[in-house]
């Protein structure tokens, strides 16, 4: 930890110096970055993903539209993929009794951050990026997720301009829950595929 703090202090100074120079040159304005961070974190969160999943679980029509054209369908919830530098194509892939999906970007860790916010630290790691395409069951096992032999696994490598989100299966026993109650069932890892839900 001490080493981290030392590195942090140096890097922190470097970043501050860089910002000063850019402000001097009129390339950024003071306070602009703080505002942008605040706006981003407020609007881009895994809760958006949970809302999409909960709606898909209770509304078959919405689910069909979501799987066919996710960018369009999420607008029905007041959500959009447009919060970033450009609107990216969102592809939602559905887990079923016979198929389990898991998402990665082996080349750099692309993730639907405009919708869900920043990716988890492990998602960015070389360990995850290198292994999940080669041994997804092994990686999922490390997350505590064991899949039956009758379940086919598909790994989606987001190597171009599409961003992926998993539609997990609705767990048994949630039939009585209202849409708003279902929100709490969905986890961030479920949206990536390293958890069942």
């Amino acid at each position, binding site marked *: 930890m001490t080493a981290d703090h030392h590195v942090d202090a140096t890097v922190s100074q470097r970043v501050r110096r860089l910002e000063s120079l850019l402000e001097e040159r009129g390339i950024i304005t003071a306070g602009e970055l703080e505002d942008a961070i605040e706006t981003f974190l407020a609007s881009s969160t895994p809760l958006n993903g949970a809302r999409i999943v909960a709606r898909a679980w209770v509304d078959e029509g919405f689910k069909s539209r979501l799987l066919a054209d996710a960018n369009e369908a999420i607008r029905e919830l007041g959500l959009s993929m447009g919060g970033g530098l450009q609107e990216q194509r969102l592809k939602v892939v559905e887990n079923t009794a016979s198929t389990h999906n898991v998402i990665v970007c082996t080349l750099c860790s692309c993730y639907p951050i405009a919708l869900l916010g920043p990716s988890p630290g492990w998602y960015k790691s070389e360990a995850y990026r290198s292994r999940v395409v080669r041994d*997804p069951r092994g990686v999922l096992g490390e997350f505590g997720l064991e899949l039956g032999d009758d379940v086919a696994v598909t790994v989606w490598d987001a190597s171009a301009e599409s961003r992926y989100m998993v539609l997990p299966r609705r767990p048994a026993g949630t039939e009585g829950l209202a849409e708003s109650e279902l929100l709490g069932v969905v986890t961030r890892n479920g949206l990536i595929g390293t958890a069942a839900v």
Partner: protein
Amino acid sequence: MRSWPVSEHFRAGDRVRVRTGDPPGHTRVPRYVRGAVGTVVESQGRYPLADERARGRAAVPPEPVYTVRFAACDLWGSGDHSVTVDLWETYLTGDADDR
């Protein structure tokens, strides 16, 4: 002189082979699929080629990007899963016959 693909060359279900090029700069073909044969899942629309954009070029014409599915067994000789990779048309050829 390579010409830009002006129409979508591949359709869902087509077998395609990833080119075995070794580009000197930025590219979005993971090493593990170079030369591999896969099946087109769908077309994602048209986007400017990342390799060209990375050279700082602004006006790069968009070309089709495809979701291509590969069997792990074909990529590594073992594994029962499949991997899909999103690939620009420039990265692909229709020459997918077994050799």
